[in-house]
């Protein structure tokens, strides 16, 4: 079998597979029953048909018994009707076929017990021969009479009706079975949905329902979900604790340093080292704890916020320009948004040497904040990477990479929390462009 077909089979769902298996089993059973055993041994005609055939046979036997052998052949011809032909010849063999109709045979013998002594034998002729009922019986002198009942159409309609009566319950069974299977497998779907959410939000145990195996699976899943959550939480806590606990020794170090009489240059350098470590810890704490995320949304003047940050940069002698309205109020969490703008402005100033922030409001009410610099930009294949936490582009923008590579990840998280979109792109004319789009009133 080629791979493509295997894959096509592989794409059938569990429900589909169980259906197919069920159908195959039923079909196999049905074929076996109908065409190998039933057709041969359980074939019976309707009561009236059988009676007519039995009477015809009894009459034919009596008449031929009394007719001398010389006239029997002709009499047999006269006894034949359009649908039932009777043949007698002195040297005939008893009919024999693998499709013996024992049921019908018994049915007829029961109706006319006289035929019991006649070695009645009936069978179904192959379809090639017309599919009729044929048979033979002995006369009193042991000569053989053969007969054929030409009622193929009737038999077939009978057979079809019978098949239908066999199939109908099967169909109902399949439908009911399918429905039950669907219900049985429903917990799987719930489980699948829950699996997609693991690690994204707080774990919510899936209700344990369904058959024992699925119950066990859901239970195992719930335990696993808790375990994963604990792992993530404990790691986060461990990192946060590191960030927290390192601050006390750093404070000691700073105070000790302040107490030592030393060269101003050396003091300055060491102070800067401590400051850098503090900044690293700070960004780590912000990233892990989502600074200000627990404070609810408030009305904020985003224009004033941006201007304040840029004015502060200007006061430090930086090249920072604001383009936009004097005032623009939106609903957002002030601390994370302020942090995001500050991070992007810092990045632009650090890597690009300047920053240009423009704030616009679209007709839809959504606002976009565009932060441009005239620096080297970011290699296109790394644009997506830099939003990941702990990613630093040491090679490309190696002038002086600071921090842990959390700045843009913090922005990304903060903007997502406001139902906004954060993108980075290289401007065609050079330099990096960071864009934050925020809905005016997040849902």
């Amino acid at each position, binding site marked *: 079998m080629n791979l493509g077909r295997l894959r096509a089979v592989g794409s059938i769902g569990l429900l589909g597979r169980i259906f197919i298996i069920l159908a195959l089993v039923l079909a196999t059973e049905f074929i076996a029953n109908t065409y190998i055993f039933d057709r041969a041994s359980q074939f019976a005609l309707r009561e009236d048909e059988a009676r007519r055939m039995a009477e015809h046979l009894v009459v034919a036997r009596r008449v031929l018994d009394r007719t001398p052998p010389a006239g029997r052949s002709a009499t047999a011809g006269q006894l034949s009707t359009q649908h039932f032909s009777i043949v007698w010849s002195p040297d005939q063999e008893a009919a024999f076929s693998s499709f013996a109709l024992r049921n019908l045979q018994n049915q007829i013998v029961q109706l006319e017990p006289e035929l019991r002594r006649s070695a009645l034998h009936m069978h179904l002729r192959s379809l090639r021969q017309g599919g009729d009922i044929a048979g033979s019986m002995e006369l009193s002198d042991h000569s053989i009479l053969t007969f054929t009942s030409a009622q193929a159409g009737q038999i077939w309609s009978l057979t079809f009706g019978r098949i239908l009566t066999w199939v109908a319950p099967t169909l109902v069974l399949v439908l009911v079975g399918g429905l039950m299977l669907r219900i049985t497998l429903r917990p799987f779907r719930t489980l699948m949905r829950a699996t997609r959410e693991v690690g994204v939000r707080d774990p919510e145990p899936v209700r344990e329902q369904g058959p024992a195996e699925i119950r066990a699976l859901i239970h195992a899943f719930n335990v696993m979900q808790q375990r994963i959550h604990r792992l993530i939480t404990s790691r986060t806590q461990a990192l946060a604790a590191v960030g*927290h*606990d390192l*601050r*006390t020794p*750093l*404070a*000691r*170090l*700073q*105070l*000790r340093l*302040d*107490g030592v009489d030393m060269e101003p240059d050396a003091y300055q350098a060491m*102070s800067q080292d*401590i400051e850098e470590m*503090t900044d690293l*810890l*700070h960004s780590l*704490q*912000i990233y892990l*704890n989502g*600074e*200000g995320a*627990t*404070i609810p949304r*408030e*009305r*904020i*003047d985003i*224009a*004033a*916020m941006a*201007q*304040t*940050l840029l*004015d*502060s940069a200007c*006061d*430090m002698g930086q090249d920072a320009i604001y383009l936009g*309205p*004097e*005032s623009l*109020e939106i609903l957002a969490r*002030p*601390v994370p948004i*302020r942090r995001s703008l500050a991070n992007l402005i810092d990045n632009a100033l650090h890597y690009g040497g300047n920053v240009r922030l423009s704030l616009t409001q679209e007709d839809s009410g959504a606002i976009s904040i565009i932060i441009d610099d005239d620096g080297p930009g970011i290699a296109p294949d790394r644009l997506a990477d830099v939003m990941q936490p702990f990613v630093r582009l040491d090679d490309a923008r190696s002038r002086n990479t600071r921090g842990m590579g959390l700045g843009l990840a913090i922005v990304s998280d903060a903007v997502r929390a406001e139902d906004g979109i954060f993108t980075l792109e290289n401007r065609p004319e050079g330099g990096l462009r960071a864009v934050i789009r925020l809905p005016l009133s997040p849902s």
Partner: protein
Amino acid sequence: MTAQTIVLVEDDPTLRMLTARLLQENGYAVRTAATAPEMWIALEGVAVDMIVLDLMLPGTNGIDLCRQIRRTSDIPIIFISARGSDEDRVLGLELGADDYLAKPFNTRELIARIRAVLRRGPMSDTDGGGGRKSEIRFDGWIVSLSRRELRSPTGAIVDLTGAEFDLLGTFIDQPQRVIGRERLIELSRTRVGDSSDRSIDVLVSRLRRKLTAAGGKPPIVTVRGVGYMFNAPVSRA
């Protein structure tokens, strides 16, 4: 003049010792405490001018402790946090702490903050019960001194730089009065940790711009040749 007394509450023994020594070297009398109960003991029987409080004391949440102190006393509190998060800062200031410092801090910073808070004295407008009313209103604007926050008449937070906020504070402290440029420059010089040498005129124009952006009339007017005047009626709630 006798030395001012500071109670230092810090659970890390070495840091406590280092900080205490530092404060002593700068002329303060220091009583140290490692835990909240020790702090209550240290506060007894002596006039204490200030508490320097570590937020993350074992056994007690520093914020609860801050609240407890405020129930009975107006003593200035500077709290020190290892979290350095804005939530802590805002919460602490809200609960009546006078200033906030993140670990690690350097000597200069700590001493400057202590001096500034001691000079300022207990925050103005206490109503005896220790509850501090630090909201000031003008023209629908609300200034929260504890949060260092300005809200527009529509309730939106309007960011100000530290220098701008201090300037606004000076103005609303003396409304309807002309304040000379020299005086404003002098006041801005005393700002802690501000290395900006922006001229006072730039600061005033930025502040004025933010206060009129929403469309009102400017509350700060220039008095030619003298200085500036804040001419909106100010109410303290």
